[in-house]
């Protein structure tokens, strides 16, 4: 059972924070404290780094992803880090740093396409299924359960073969990953949205819309959908993370994107496999780190957003001693006015014109005053 509601004080005119402060991530960032804040900030930094790298790849990368020579001269294979090549070159003679930077672009495409595809299909199916119920709902739930059993990597391999027909291209690889991710993640969006819709559907405000005479489409879009998206951020981040890992896995297994088509972390890892035993570290570690950090950043953002959204998991700033605002109670019956710090003594004042002097908040009690005789 919850504690007696302490109530949020209701000012005469509500002060809505500026719009940018109420945006999803910004709002959480401002309210978080302690470890949760550290997690969120770390996640956001890593994700921002990834996004910036992907967007600014042409500026950041010293060479192209398929570039083998500069000024008509070959780079050379397995050059050690330093000089013209900050992270050295690979066995085939590509610049490692440039391939890692360009690889972030491929990863971003995969994430964006994969997330958009699965979110649209999953949310629409979940909404319709949860709202109308009946046989459609039962069939969709069974199908979703069946799809759960699909291993995403195997599906991605299949999709890679079907889509690119054996030809390796950037969009072939990206689409193969995105499609397999979509298939695997639709059931997750579907389940979550459906469960929320079933919950929201029975709330009084939806019934109220029905009593008013709103049509199904209006109820679904205006009243149900927007209240059913609470847990989506967490799934989006999981979805994005899975997309990065599947793309890398595909490349690592040799179904990835040829180096002439685009940068691909998985492909680079695959080619670096033989280098590791011969003491060449710089071909394996940079793409590996890129995969790990991207996945970690996105997951951290998701995890901390999830924790912050749940009041039972959210940590709050601790109160210093006994001090602070008095939980306001309604002073005037049914009142527009509510009693502030002056408490019961302020009732009559509130009914009339406002008092000239606003009484101060009671000073915080010292522990030493305990044990006094009752004053009332």
């Amino acid at each position: 059972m919850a504690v007696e509601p302490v109530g949020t004080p209701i000012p005469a005119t509500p002060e809505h924070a500026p719009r940018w402060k109420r945006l999803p991530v910004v709002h959480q960032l401002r309210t978080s404290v302690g470890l949760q804040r550290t997690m969120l900030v770390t996640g956001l930094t890593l994700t921002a780094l990834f996004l910036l790298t992907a967007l600014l790849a042409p500026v950041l990368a010293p060479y192209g992803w398929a570039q083998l020579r500069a000024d008509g001269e070959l780079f050379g294979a397995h050059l050690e880090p330093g000089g013209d090549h900050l992270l050295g070159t690979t066995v085939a003679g590509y610049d490692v740093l440039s391939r890692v930077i360009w690889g972030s672009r491929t990863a971003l495409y995969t994430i964006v396409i994969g997330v958009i595809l699965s979110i649209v299909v999953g949310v629409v199916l979940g909404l319709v299924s949860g709202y109308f119920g009946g046989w459609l709902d039962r069939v969709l739930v069974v199908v979703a359960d069946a799809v759960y059993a699909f291993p995403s990597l195997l599906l991605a391999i299949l999709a890679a073969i079907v889509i690119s027909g054996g030809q390796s291209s950037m969009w072939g690889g990206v689409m193969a990953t995105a499609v397999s991710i979509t298939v695997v993640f639709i059931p997750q969006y579907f389940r979550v949205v459906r469960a929320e819709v079933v919950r929201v559907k029975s709330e009084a405000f939806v019934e109220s819309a029905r009593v008013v005479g709103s049509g199904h489409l209006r109820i679904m879009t205006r009243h149900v959908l927007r209240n059913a998206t609470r847990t989506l951020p967490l799934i989006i981040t999981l979805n994005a993370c899975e997309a990065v890992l599947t793309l890398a896995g595909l490349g690592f297994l040799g179904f990835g994107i040829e180096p002439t088509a685009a940068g691909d972390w998985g492909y680079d890892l695959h080619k670096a496999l033989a280098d590791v035993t011969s003491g060449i570290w710089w071909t394996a570690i940079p793409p590996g780190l890129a995969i790990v950090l991207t996945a970690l950043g996105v997951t951290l953002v998701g995890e901390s957003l999830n924790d912050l959204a749940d009041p039972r998991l959210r940590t709050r700033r601790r109160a210093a001693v006994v001090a602070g605002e008095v939980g306001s109670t309604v002073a005037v019956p049914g009142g527009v006015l509510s009693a502030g710090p002056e408490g019961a003594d302020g009732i009559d004042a509130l009914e009339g014109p406002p008092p000239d002097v606003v009484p101060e908040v009671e000073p915080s009690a010292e522990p030493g005053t305990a044990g006094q005789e009752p004053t009332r």
Partner: protein
Amino acid sequence: MSRPVVEINDLHVTFDTDAGPVQAVRGVHLEVAPGEVLAVVGESGSGKTVTARSILGLLPQTARTTGAVLLSGPGGQEALDVTTISAAQLRRVRGRDAAMVFQEPSSVLNPVFPVGWQIAEGLRAHGRLSRAQARERAVDVLRRVGIPDPEHRVDHYPHQFSGGQKQRIVIAQALVLNPGLVIADEPTTALDVTVQAEILDLLRILPRELDAAILLITHNMGVVADLADRVAVMYGGEIVEQADVRTLFAQPQHPYTRRLLDAVPRVGGARLRQRARETTDSSAAPVVRARGLEVTYPGRLRRPGFRAVAGVDLQIAPGEVLGLVGESGSGKTTIGRAIAGLTHVTAGSLEVLGVEMNGVRERRFRPVRKRIGFVFQDPATSFNPLLTIAQCVAEPLLVHGAAGSVREARARVDELLEAVQLPRSFGARFPHELSGGQRQRASLARALALDPDLLVADEPTSALDVSVQARVLDLFARLQAELGFACLFISRDLAVVDLLADRIAVLHRGALVEEGTGDQVLGAPQHPYTQRLLASLPVPDPVEQAERRARWLELRGG
């Protein structure tokens, strides 16, 4: 004078919240003498539950406490300060020195263990008892709280008991260790009136037999009048008045106490509406006419369905307010929902504004919908949390094409908000920024947006504090007189219905047992169920309540 069982000295409690620290209790002093019943009354947010919970150290981690809570042990042991003792000591104190009875019996009992096991759990936590001994004690205490056939029922699971019996078991659980103090936090709020009367009776007799004091937390002044010896009134985290129960009801000192007592509705008290029904044209077609109305909810596989409404005949004339009274499960809400087209009629006939609802198609009913308003019970959930109040109130106007956009509807919305005495600026607020009473008034504004001929109000004030309820009911009566809509007013509170209704209909297990004007039904009830219902209702006056209690005991015995 013996030492008090519990002594609270200058207690302050502060909570850490998202909006910064919030003070819930500010300098409370309280004493409970052995064997005494002290009622702490106050509205939500007054800090009464926080005060009570601090006695057992049951506050959440976000709470910060200063002051002293001295709890006496059994046999004159030295009193311990609960706020400072260790967790191990606190565990020893809980149940032995003070026990708690919670509000909702069905969520307090663990559904997967037999009740006897749950009672023995408390015994075993405090002493070495063999299984057989613990069981014996459990049977004994169950017999004391009036569970029939306790030797057999001790092995039953919570779902095999009724709500009232479950609350008895919770009380048994609290009493089994013979604590000096029982804290009862709204022990009867979740129960029906007739069951409430039985539990109050039990709470009156038992602790006295066992020499335990009761700290009763409640917002129901009738319960206070029935049970308490002394009353402390809390407001805004402080105790504003403490007095003997008769003194408090007869001569309340603090203005807040006076206002609180004035706001409590009484059966047979002043009414809010003039009964000018003689002028009603009885030949006019009724707004609602039900004949042999039946609503059956389908059962699970191979099980028969549940008949919520079984053959009800009733009529509502234009401009008339019909009060529908009944306990939970009586089918009153189902009738309201059937009239609004939210539940299918399964048999009989229900005509709403000229449309037969049995087997009606949505397309045929759609045009009628704009002539019906609906006010829901829980103001917390009846607004879409993502829309502003103005958008919510404008919704009916938009749906029925009375306005093209929220902006166009704004003039009408402002007018409606003013009609329900909310400032226009509230239109820009979100529902969570309004108090319960304000939200319920906005809900009324939404229901009246299209100037309906019929309003269905499903327990519109049961979630509100008394003083807030008084204001909403007053407003309701005024708007009804002004706009002249017919109304089905559903409530389980006889006193509230009496304030508003022209006629009162009493439902019992899906059937209409009595119908008539307020004076007929409440003044001279004919049906035994109505008589029992009326006698169970505690009145907010200790002297009168003592007489009523005697009558109730007579009725129960007879």
